[in-house]
């Protein structure tokens, strides 16, 4: 999805780096190979991006200038129309099983802002530090998400879980991931990653967790799933 924008903007000094927050890198491989991108496509099994940059959902992106200074902290980042979420909007829900229709009815409310986001990147490419979208260091820090000791503990529990899972003890990972979810309820990457192991794709409720994608999205309202961009 990002290659098209990369082709347009790389001659103007912008590089794209995609990072897959997959605990199991092999799950990201098919998409990476299909994209066959010119830009670096990396893997972050431990969700280091959550810790170091404040990523809480995907897709999220951070802008870093020529000197290595962050000029926009983590925020929702849609490079174009998403064919999957767009397809929800045109489905005839009355023809579907009621439980699936209920999920899709909620998912139809998910709001993305690809036109604005791409316009912001183009403006930064053209105007650099003078772009209205390139923030000052103080603004960048102030706009990064709040973090307290619970948030720090959630990251630690997530990392313990992924380490145990990768070493073959998935059952031992679950209590740590449950703790990560409890301590940092606004972080979707911890939850989505964990749900997906028990219930691939639909991320439905299982015995492992007291939550599911649909239940948690419904709680906040799908229209709030991606917070609005603050240009």
């Amino acid at each position, binding site marked *: 999805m990002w290659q098209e924008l990369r082709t347009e903007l790389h001659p103007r000094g912008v590089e794209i780096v995609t990072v897959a927050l997959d605990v199991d890198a092999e799950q990201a491989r098919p998409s990476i190979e299909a994209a066959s991108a010119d830009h670096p*496509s990396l*893997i972050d099994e431990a969700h280091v991006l959550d810790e*170091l940059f404040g990523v809480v959902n995907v897709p999220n*992106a951070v802008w*870093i*200038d020529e000197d290595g200074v962050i000029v926009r902290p*983590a925020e929702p980042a849609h490079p174009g129309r998403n064919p999957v979420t767009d397809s929800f909007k045109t489905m005839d829900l009355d023809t579907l099983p009621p439980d699936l229709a209920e999920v899709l009815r909620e998912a139809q409310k998910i709001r993305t802002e690809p036109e604005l986001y791409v316009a912001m990147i183009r403006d930064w490419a053209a105007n650099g530090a003078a772009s209205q979208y390139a923030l000052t260091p103080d603004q960048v820090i102030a706009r990064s998400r709040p973090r307290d000791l619970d948030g720090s503990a959630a990251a630690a529990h997530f990392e*313990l879980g992924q380490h145990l899972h990768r070493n073959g003890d998935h059952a031992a990972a679950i209590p740590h991931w449950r703790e990560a979810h409890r301590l940092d309820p606004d972080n979707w990457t911890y939850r989505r990653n964990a749900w997906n192991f028990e219930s691939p794709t639909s991320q439905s409720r299982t015995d492992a967790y007291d939550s599911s994608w649909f239940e948690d999205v419904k709680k906040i309202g799908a229209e709030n799933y991606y917070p609005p961009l603050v240009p």
Partner: protein
Amino acid sequence: MLLTDLLVDADEFATRTGWSVKPQGACKAEVCVPLPDDVRAPDGRLDASVIAGRLGMSLIRHDDQTLWALGPETAVTGRALTTAVAPDLTLPDVEGRPFTLSSLRGQKVVMVAWASW
């Protein structure tokens, strides 16, 4: 950061967390937090519980095994970012080849987190 010992190699700590221990304390870009003298063990390694206390990092132990994880700092700004200077992150590609973010200095970078799930 995963730990199998509460004494941590200073270079590994810097690589994973972005915090370097210098004479003036633990530093991340322009921000330095003073550390007590006893943060260093005689062999030069760092006492993770002392660092955790000063930087506001949660130190979580897995059951009774010798496995811990140290969460990110909270003490300076109370936000995900302590400084706007990007940490020098190295991550692998899908073949395991490492890529270092700072190799892109001189270009604007849009770093995008996505996932298969």
